[in-house]
């Protein structure tokens, strides 16, 4: 590839995302809240432990629960599930978008599947598959699949038939056709689908870990709560919140880099 290298493009995109973030003084209410909390309640408490206690609790969690490894396991499960959902969602989405027959045949099934809140698939998968890694992935894929599939389908449907005719008259090969017509039309919609799927996938990953005690952050969250370790519960809330924030922003960077390659068509 010519032009700027990937690293400089990512760096540039990082700057763009940073510039799009609201000014940092907007953090003031949050900092104020934590400060007042610390002043009013400076010691341990079963309900509202002081923020300084959260900090010590994080240290405990790092030693006792191997928090870093747990975050690693959760991240890996989340990424694997998301990747599978992207693959299946795109393939099915293109199929349904291209074929009117498939769309009509599958529409009621998909409508119903989409209406089922993803969390309830966890007990069903536990029944059918048992408690293991495959069950974890199945459930995450089932949750993250729909937004990706639906966005891909509608993008494929909106491809101008004229473009396809043009490709035919230019005798483009199949790979050329995919590269020049299908991909530019699908990629922006696919990215929107993934953006919607990410929070869902995070929630379901944590939920599976909570319900099944498979190793991960979710299991630690529920364990801390059951042991009434209130400062650990708050510490985990902050850490999981940061996790969500970082994942979202990282995806914004990736999205920007890809969007520049395939700008959305008007």
């Amino acid at each position, binding site marked *: 590839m010519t032009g700027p290298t990937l690293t400089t493009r990512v760096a540039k995109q990082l700057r763009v995302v940073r510039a799009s973030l*609201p*000014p940092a003084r907007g953090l003031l*209410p949050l900092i104020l809240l934590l400060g007042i909390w610390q002043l009013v309640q400076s010691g341990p408490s079963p309900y509202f432990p002081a923020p300084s206690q959260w900090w010590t609790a994080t240290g405990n969690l790092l030693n006792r629960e191997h928090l870093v490894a747990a975050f690693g396991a959760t991240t890996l499960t989340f990424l694997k599930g998301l990747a599978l959902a992207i693959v299946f969602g795109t393939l099915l989405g293109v199929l349904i978008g291209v074929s009117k027959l498939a769309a009509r045949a599958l529409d009621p099934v998909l409508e119903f599947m989409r209406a*089922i809140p993803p969390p309830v698939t966890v007990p069903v998968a536990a029944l059918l598959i048992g408690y293991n890694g495959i069950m974890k992935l199945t459930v995450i894929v089932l949750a993250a699949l729909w937004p990706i599939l639906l966005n891909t389908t509608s993008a494929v449907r909106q491809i101008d038939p004229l473009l396809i005719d043009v490709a035919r008259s230019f005798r483009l090969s199949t790979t050329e056709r995919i590269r020049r017509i299908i991909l530019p039309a699908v990629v922006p919609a696919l990215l929107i689908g993934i953006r919607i799927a990410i929070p869902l996938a995070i929630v379901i990953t944590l939920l599976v870990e909570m319900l099944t005690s498979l190793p991960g952050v979710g299991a630690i969250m*529920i364990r801390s*709560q059951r042991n009434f370790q209130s400062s650990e519960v708050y510490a985990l809330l902050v850490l999981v919140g940061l996790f969500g924030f970082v994942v979202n922003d990282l995806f914004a960077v990736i999205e920007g880099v890809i969007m520049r390659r395939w700008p959305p068509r008007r």
Partner: protein
Amino acid sequence: MRELERLLARINWLGLGTIALAFALWEISLRAGFAQYQNLPTPSAIAIGLVEIMSNGQLLADTSHTLLSVLVGWLAAVAIGVVLGLMLGASPMLRRYSLASIEVLRPMPGIAFAPVALLLFGFSLQMELMVIILPALWPVLIATMGAVMGVHARLFEVGRTFRLSRGEILRKIMLPAALPGVLVGARLSMTLALVLAVVAEMVGNPAGLGYAVVREQQAMRPELVFAYVAAIGALGMILNAALTGAVNLLFPAASGRLREVGA
């Protein structure tokens, strides 16, 4: 007669046929022993299970609990979201000094509140409502704020020229302009509220449809697990259809915008 014909023509026979075929294959392959899944019930067993929970009143009790917490949580989230969204949309000053806090809190996975809510409220309805409201208010807040910010500045000038009071500006200019955005946000937040209610019932409050699914799974009644899942899916579809219908009825002008956004 015409109406009936049009209705019949609108039905997706191919789609319904696909469902029927899938169910038939599922039933036959299990009965004939082609497929062996320890805990996979046949569709007929699920149907019998559905009749069972309907006739003994379980389904009604569980559904009404979930429906109540979804509606209460959703209404609270919409109310809080609209008020905060209007304030933030109208005041650049307020935005400058709080938007970053919101951007930090917003991507927080909703389920992360469940352990804190359990700590504070134990296994109770309050716990469930906290898990629903906190994540479900963001879509409404953001959509309302965006809609108010999108109101043309000239409209406010017109309001001032006509010497409208602050209350009148709010009622006659800001609210009507914000309405489509509010509705889009409210719809997203309704879907979210159902998901979170089920999550809260699964890990916390032992009541409602979410708990019922876990309960029947632990009781090793797969046919009831599937029956409850079907019921939850139906509830989701009904809630969505009811909201769309209500929007079309109450705010016909805004419904076109809603469809356009594809919410």
